[in-house]
C-alpha cells in the first residue's frame, strides 16, 4: 500500500477500534509506516526450514501416491527457495505432466529454472575471455527459450558464491547485473542485455579494462 493509504488506515483503525479488529499481512515490515506498526501486535513468520518443507512434501506425495526420490526432493527444496506454495505448485505441475514418478529433471523443466550445465557453460565462456564463445552461448540461451531474468539470477548466485573471484571483481559484475535487470524490466531486448552482461562479466573476470579508451 502507498504511504497515504496507510496513513488513512490509521484514522480508521482508531475510530472503529471498538467494533473491528484488523489483521494485516505483509512481506516486509519495513514498508509499513511506523504509526501503523506501533498500533499492532507483531508476529514474525520465518521462512520454513528445509525439514518442515520436506516433511510436508513427502506427506503430499504419500497422499497422492507419487514417487519422489531423495535427489528430486532436494532439487525441489532448492528451486522453491523456501516457498512451500511454489514447491507444491511445481510438484503438481510435474505430476500432471510426467505421471506419478517424478525425477529432479522433470521438476526443473516444470519450474522454468535453467539447468545447471547451461548456466555453467555461459559462466565458463565468460571466464575464457573469448567474446565469440560467449556470444554463441548467449545466442543458444535465447534460442532455447530460457528467460533472461532467470539466467541473470542464477548466474548471479554462481558468481557471488565462487571464492576465487575478488570482491572488487564481484562488485563490478554485480553493478552491471543490477543495470541489466532494470533494463529487462523496462522491456529491453533479452539478447542484447544478456550479451552486455556476459561481456562485462568477462572483462571483470579477466581484468580487462572496463572502458575502451583510445588515445586520450
Amino acid at each position, binding site marked *: 500500500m502507498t504511504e497515504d493509504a496507510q496513513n488513512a488506515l490509521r484514522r480508521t483503525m482508531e475510530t472503529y477500534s471498538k467494533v473491528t479488529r484488523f489483521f494485516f499481512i505483509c512481506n516486509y515490515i519495513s514498508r509499513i509506516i511506523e504509526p501503523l506498526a506501533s498500533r499492532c501486535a507483531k508476529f514474525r513468520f520465518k521462512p520454513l526450514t528445509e525439514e518442515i518443507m520436506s516433511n510436508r512434501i513427502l506427506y503430499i506425495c504419500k497422499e497422492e501416491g507419487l514417487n519422489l526420490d531423495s535427489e528430486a526432493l532436494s532439487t525441489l527444496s532448492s528451486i522453491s527457495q523456501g516457498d512451500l506454495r*511454489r514447491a507444491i*505448485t511445481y510438484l503438481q*505441475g510435474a505430476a*500432471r*505432466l*510426467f*505421471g506419478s514418478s517424478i525425477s529432479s529433471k522433470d521438476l526443473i*523443466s*516444470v*519450474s*522454468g529454472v535453467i539447468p545447471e550445465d547451461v548456466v555453467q557453460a555461459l559462466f565458463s565462456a565468460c571466464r575464457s575471455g*573469448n*567474446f*565469440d564463445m560467449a*556470444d554463441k552461448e548467449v545466442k543458444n540461451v*535465447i*534460442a*532455447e*527459450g*530460457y*528467460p*533472461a*531474468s*532467470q539466467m541473470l539470477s542464477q548466474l548471479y548466485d554462481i558468481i557471488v558464491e565462487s571464492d576465487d573471484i575478488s570482491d572488487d571483481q564481484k562488485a563490478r559484475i554485480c553493478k552491471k547485473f543490477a543495470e*541489466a535487470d532494470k*533494463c*529487462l524490466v*523496462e*522491456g*529491453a*531486448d*533479452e*539478447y*542484447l*542485455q544478456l*550479451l*552486455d552482461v556476459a*561481456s*562485462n562479466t*568477462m*572483462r571483470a573476470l579477466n581484468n*580487462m579494462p572496463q*572502458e*575502451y579508451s*583510445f*588515445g586520450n
Partner: protein
Amino acid sequence: MLWVDKYRPKTLDKVLVHQDIAQNLKKLVTEQDCPHLLFYGPPGSGKKTLIMALLRQIFGASADKVKVENKNWKVDAGSRTIDVELTTLSSTHHVELSPSDAGFQDRYVVQEIIKEMAKNRPIDSKGKKGFKVLVLNEVDKLSREAQHSLRRTMEKYSASCRLILCCNSSSKVTEAVRSRCLNMRINAPTEGEIIKVLEFIGKKESLQLPPGFAERIAHQSNRSLRRAILSFETCRVQQYPFTSNQAIPPMDWEEYISEIASTIFKEQSPKRLYEVRGKLYELLVNCIPPEIILKRLLYELMKKLDSELKHEIAHWAAYYEHRLRLGQKAIFHLEAFVAKFMSIYKGFLIETFG
C-alpha cells in the same frame, strides 16, 4: 498454399520437433483436467502449431473450423465509454485474440472482454458442463495493469474457461501470472531438427535435394523453422532442380542492413551518417521493427571487429536498444548508435594506424 501452412502438423502425434512436449501435452489433456498453460519460446519454434494441435486433441476436428471476426466492444469505464476494436479467431470451442493489439487499452480488453467470453459456459455433447479455451497471443506485450487484471480473471473463471497464453519471453510476464500456469518452454529447433523437417517436406513434394543443401538453409535460418521453410520454398520457386551450390537468397532487409554496415565501415563522417539515416528510414517505413534492425546491424558490424571493440559495441547496442524501448522515435536511437559506432571505430583506427 504456402508450405509453412501446408505442412503444419495437425495433430499432436504428427509433430516432428518437440515430440516429447507433444506427448506430455497429450497425456495432460486425456486426463480431462487441463490447467492454464503458458507457452514461451523464440519465434518460429512451433508454439502456435502445438497450441492448435492441442486444441484439436481436446475438441476434435471441430476446433479446425475457425472464423475470423472483427468485433467492436463498448466498454463502460466509469464516466466514459471506450470503443475497442479487435480481431478474433474463434471456433465453437475456443477464441483466440491478441489483447496487446488494443494498445494502451489492453487493460479493458482483459477486464471486460475476456470476462464476457469466459462467462458463457458451453455445454458439451454429453450434457456435461465443458470448458472453453481462450488463446491469448503476445502476453509479454501486455501492460502491467493488464497482466494484473488477467490474474483475477484466471482465478474467477477457472471453472469454465482455460487460458492458453503464448509469448516470446517469459521474463516479461509477471510472476503472478506465471505461477498460475503450467509453463511450457518451447525451444527453437536445432539445425538437425530443421534439416529433418526440410527433408520430410522435400520427400512429400518429391524434390531432389542435393547433399548439404538442407544444411545450408538450416544454418541460415537462425534456428527458426518458419524461416527455414519459407526460404526453402523461395529456392524452389527460383530454380529447380536444385544445384548443390545454389545461393540461398537472404531476406531483402538483411541484405540492405549488410549494405549499411559496409557503408559505415568505409568512411566515418557526418556525410556518411546522413546517408545511413536515409537508409534506416527506408527500413523503418517498410515496417521492419527497429530492435530487429539494431540487432542485425550489430551482427553485421561484429563480423569485422576486434574482440576488444566487440565488448564496447555490444554494450552500446544494449544501451541504445533500451533507450529505444523507452523513447518514442526509433530513428533517433538507431542513428545515435551508428554515430557512436563511427566515433569509436574512427578512434580505434587513428590509434592503431596513426
